[in-house]
């Protein structure tokens, strides 16, 4: 393997990757966490089966700029908006939230409505997630509780 140019960023983004709810499959969350790590970000992984409140506490205490939620159990329609609501209640309205997992197209508008700026289904290239992170991080109104209609049109 050849020399890799040093692309160490001045200040890496802090991103919490969390799994709300009861399903026990975290392969997807780990792949995303790894891709974010390899892109130079600091990823705080919370592990499986977290309550909404636990996730919000972690985002607050870790001062994360982004929150990635993963769900494969079908409970996303209930859990994701609940996390968003608690984030806003905790004054964390500028945190940027994205989600992934088995999430049917018809469920996505409601999630965008709740403040989730991207929903990635199975087969999404990790490069697309990095591109979303990059674009969202330079906007100043993409937080979960901020007034903006912007969301990422994902390919899968």
């Amino acid at each position: 393997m050849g020399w890799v140019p040093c692309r160490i960023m001045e200040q890496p983004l802090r991103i919490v990757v969390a799994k709300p709810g009861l399903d026990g499959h975290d392969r997807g969350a780990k792949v995303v966490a790894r891709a974010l790590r390899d892109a130079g970000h600091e990823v705080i992984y919370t592990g499986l089966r977290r309550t909404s409140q636990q996730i919000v506490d972690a985002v607050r205490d870790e001062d994360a700029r982004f929150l990635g939620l993963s769900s494969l159990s079908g409970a996303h329609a209930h859990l994701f908006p609940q996390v968003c609501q608690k984030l806003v209640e905790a004054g964390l309205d500028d945190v940027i939230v994205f989600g992934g997992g088995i999430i049917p197209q018809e469920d996505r508008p409601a999630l965008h409505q709740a403040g989730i700026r991207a929903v990635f289904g199975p087969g999404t290239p990790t490069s697309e997630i990095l591109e979303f992170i990059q674009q969202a991080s330079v906007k100043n109104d993409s937080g979960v509780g901020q007034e903006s209609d912007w969301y990422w049109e994902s390919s899968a």
Partner: protein
Amino acid sequence: MSDKLQQAISGDRRVMARLLSQIENGDLLVSEVLPDNQSIEYNSWSTMAITGAPGVGKSVLVDALMNQWAGQGLRVALLAVDPSSPRTGGALLGDRVRMSSVDNPNINERVYVRSIATRSSSGSVPLIVEDMAAFLIACGWERILIETVGSGQAELRCAAVADRIVVVEGPARGDGVQAEKAGLLELADIVLVNKADLDGAERHAGELRESYALDGEDAPDVLLTSGLKGIGIEEAAVALLELPSSGRALRARMRERLLGQHERRLVLHPSYNEVLNGLCEGTFDIDEALKQLQGEENERAS
């Protein structure tokens, strides 16, 4: 600024977490907002480093101790350090996965956990952790635990940032000669042999005690614990809370501070990344790189 500081001190954890990021990023100097409190305290401690090899059970043990101390009403903060990638600067910070104390609603008002990446520093603890700990103390956190990157025999940087050093060992960590080797074990104020439920823990503790016996009176205690099974945790929590400094680490502490600050100056130098790239490309050698990073620094200082 002082408004934010006041909010953090009066218990706003969101503001406190944000200020900690500013300190970590070098945007806020602790020395400018807090009174100087660098004096070394021998009788009680504020900061305690928990160090030891990868996989000996530091995180689970720390969580068990935090459960104990927070349960008694103490406010305990943990700064958990994991390594940054030397290639990309990214990090996967996974210590929260094993933390039950932050998720226990009966005590989590008194528990704060913050994951920290080593970023550009070498060693098991970045020196900025000392400033972050000082800030947490100012915000009313009574005991600050620093969980280092899993580290081997000669990684002593934690001595630069903590009042006390706890070395966590596991069972069956090599033969009796390992216990005789110089290094980290010499600086320990106490040693916890974790995973006490497994074969070899008793024997390893015995070997360590035997080795320490040759040191005479100021030898550290060696306790058996299991963070997972809850063995020896209450005893360890009491012993650690009252732990006196062995006093053996003063010279090493100062040496680590000196070396650590020297490194930090190099790393924070504006041309650091440029010089690294130059080394990778072969445009200059190590001597020239050092000259560039130190020369300009000295000129600026003079």
